[in-house]
């Protein structure tokens, strides 16, 4: 059933949020420490385990797929409720940070490619192409 997938997602999100809050308390930083990341990690592990046992039926996957395809629309809604008027005053910051980081990353590509090349010559792999939700 579709709700099984949605429920699985909900449980992973909640456990992640809980772990994140606990970590925040333990570390004394009064914030949620990496809760979303923990939730994602959990979901990958559980989905992987379920799929290997053939326990994740197509209907359940639909529940997960629906929410991951709602991701960009939700991000658009999130953008629509930010304090953009105040942020515009700091506008050049976003432009310089965003453009600069692209330039720096471009420069690093040839340097890091060399590291991989030595190792890659021993094993050649081809990832299959699959349709991804863009983000």
């Amino acid at each position, binding site marked *: 059933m579709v709700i099984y997938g949605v429920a699985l997602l909900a449980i992973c999100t909640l456990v992640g949020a809980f772990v994140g809050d606990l970590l925040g308390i333990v570390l004394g930083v009064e914030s949620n420490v990496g809760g979303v990341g923990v939730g994602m990690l959990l979901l990958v592990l559980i989905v992987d385990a379920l799929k290997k046992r053939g326990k994740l039926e197509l209907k359940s996957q639909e529940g997960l797929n629906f929410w991951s395809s709602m991701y960009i*629309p939700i991000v658009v*809604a999130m953008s629509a409720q930010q304090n953009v008027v105040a942020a515009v005053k700091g506008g050049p910051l976003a432009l310089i940070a965003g453009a600069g980081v*692209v330039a720096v990353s471009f420069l690093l590509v040839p340097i890091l490619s060399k590291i991989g090349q030595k190792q890659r010559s021993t094993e050649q792999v081809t990832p299959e192409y699959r349709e991804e939700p863009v983000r």
Partner: protein
Amino acid sequence: MIDTLVSVFKNNGLVLSFALIGVIMYVSYFLSAKLTRGRIHGSAIAIILGLFVAYLGGLNTGGEKGLADIGIFAGIGIMGGGMLRDFAIVSTAFGASFDEIKKAGVGGVISLFLGVIVSFVFGVVIALAFGYTDAVSLTTIGAGTVTYIVGPVTGSAIGASSEVMALSIAAGLVKSVFTMTFTPFIAKYIGLNNPQSALVFGGLLGTTSGVAGGLAATDPKLVPYGALTATFYTGLGCLIVPSLFFIVMKAFFA
């Protein structure tokens, strides 16, 4: 008549926001295809439009929550609020698997970590240059430079102001659009013409729409390699930026 319509909208805030965001998405993908021939991805245009209507909302109400401050659009606040946002972000991990990351090899994994670290540090340096000095704002802007998702996820986890969150989204958005636009022009200068460099490229830039769009315009055969590493980038960012990086930042900036 108008009163009835307004009350229908007010009573169905979340449903109205689905309709509204649907229209924004449609317009964005239309503009992407017609105006930019797909060069700039529809999702990026949609986020730009989202920020734009937030700007209009802010001008109108003088409030801090963009469009959500206007009574009938309060549902936007639910759809784009922290709860559904985190829920949807976690769901994107569906489809990723650790068997995949093994295919990326050592070079791919190094580029992934280095990509997050370099982006974060760069964002923090720029934020410092613009006069931000508190750990929360610096971390949030640094996180936005990682991707426009890691920014707000981090910001709301550590309690940043909406203004700083908007800045972090904007920084990530600029990164994404610049990656889409400039990758095909710069590709030959950085040796971006083989699977290995595409893997590294995906790990360093990390913005999935930017990487996929940029590589597609360069050489469609490279897209799956870049997407392979980029898929893990936002997740890695959500994991280590609000935790490890924030704690390090707190040690340096009070």
